[in-house]
């Protein structure tokens, strides 16, 4: 018996809709466990989570989810190879110390990976920088440069490059603007958020 949940964030909903039922899933940076709860209840997945913030971990555990308080930069190393069908990293890549190494770890512990991130090349961000001459504070990136956790801003095209360099494959991609899914054309201009499904 669970309390009514608010609808999933669009990037999480896209991931939830494309995880095969009954999969083993690791959600890295799982927050309050919204995606995990959805995957367990709707798709019968075996979902595990990792989250840095102890207060969020407590909320997850108290709703019956299996979540470890840990740092993706340090603690992924303890999971065996291909321990999961999917490793999910939602809106956390840009906060990692070394996003490239995290991507390696995702594709090591998971057979497939979902990665979502805010696209720094969205036209609003470009406009803020080009016209305003200041670090963008936008709907998708609402925190000022001096207190944001986003230390590695990334664009859709940058991410595609990194995937290529890593020898990984993009299986599918979804793009979002204003909470709605949009088409792939000119996504690097038009998308506020992107979700990629990867394999290696």
């Amino acid at each position, binding site marked *: 018996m669970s309390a009514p949940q608010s609808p999933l964030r669009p990037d999480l909903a896209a991931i939830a809709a494309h995880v095969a039922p009954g999969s083993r899933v690791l959600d890295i940076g799982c927050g309050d466990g919204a995606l995990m709860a959805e995957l367990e209840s709707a798709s019968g997945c*075996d979902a*595990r989570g990792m989250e840095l913030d*102890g*207060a969020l*971990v*407590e909320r*997850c*555990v*108290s*709703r*019956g*989810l*299996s*979540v*470890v*308080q*840990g740092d993706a930069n340090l*603690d992924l190393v*303890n*999971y*065996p190879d291909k*321990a999961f069908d999917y490793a999910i990293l939602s809106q956390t890549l840009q906060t990692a110390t070394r996003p490239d190494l995290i991507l390696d770890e995702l594709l090591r512990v998971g057979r497939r990976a979902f990665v979502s991130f805010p696209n720094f090349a969205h036209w609003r961000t470009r406009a803020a920088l080009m016209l305003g001459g200041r670090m963008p504070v936008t709907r998708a990136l609402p925190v000022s440069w001096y207190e944001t956790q986003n230390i590695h801003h990334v664009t859709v095209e940058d991410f595609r490059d990194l995937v290529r360099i890593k020898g990984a494959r993009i299986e599918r991609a979804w793009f979002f603007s204003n909470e709605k899914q949009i088409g792939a054309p000119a996504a690097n201009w038009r998308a506020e958020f992107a979700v990629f499904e990867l394999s290696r």
Partner: protein
Amino acid sequence: MSYPSLVYRIPHPLPLDSGQVLENCEIAYETYGTLAPDASNAVLVCHALTGDQYLASPHPITGKPGWWERMVGPGKPIDTNRHYVICANVIGSCMGSSGPASLAPDGQPYAMRFPVITIRDMVRGLVALLDGLGIAQLHAVVGGSMGGMQALSLAANWPERAARVLVIAATARHSAQNIAFHEVGRQAIMADPAWAQGNYYDSDAKPDNGLAVARMAAHITYLSEAGLTEKFGRRLQDRDAKGFGFDAEFQVESYLRYQGTGFTRRFDANSYLYITRAMDYFDIAEEHGGKLANAFAGTQARFCIVSFDTDWLYPTAESRHVVHALNAAGAKVSFVELSAPHGHDSFLLEHDQLDRVVKGFVE
């Protein structure tokens, strides 16, 4: 008011890690709530070093409330309206289960003739009790400190006996520092002339002074430096100025002496030797080929590991070590480090977050 415990006599010799066996071993225990007809709602709570089976009912000697009444009872995080909660005195202790103060077959107290036991031996006793109660699988096993070690030992050695394993402020092995503090306590007891090589049960003099010092030293390790400073600072006890003597002039000295003497009224010095030794021997990895992950290979249980940020006795790093092993074994595990000012003892104190974690996990 007295609450005489139930006593279960294990109907077979209990084999021990030392190679010895314990005949006619008795386990004193308390229960709360009602066992479901299919025995599916049992929760075993394991007690700490100086704890006992009086989990949620008054202690017969001190008259104080049960040691975890905050956590266990009707409507509490471990809800006795839903669960049948069992708490048993560990073997080696002194509240009714077989220990050094118990009578050996020759009619005299065992004293130091009692076999040296381990945490796994304590759990063997608990498993025998579960057999006696007809409980094939626990809904959950829960423990803090040494209780957490028992929970881990049960999960590692009898993996089919518990569906959920909740380990609070514990460790999978005793560190050199842990052993060192225990050795101070043991030496304090054995240096007390009244200890008499453990044969004090018929004597008027008991090694209370040694046991009190052991408790004082250990008690410091259960608290945090900040907690002690906040509670006592450098404040003086019942005086306005230093007395240039060796009375308990500081409040913290007075408090420790009170803790020490209070402890001697309810605890047996030889039990303190045996249980601290059992804890010092504790190293689950060693029992499983040197690799902690091996201890949990193939487990189907769900685990929840909780540490406290100010606990320097069993610091968070020890809990993480367990979590990493469980991850490597593919076990379903949760882990959270809670913030609390009071060090190791935080698991016994008021803590809303701990309550929510326990409730969410055990439910």
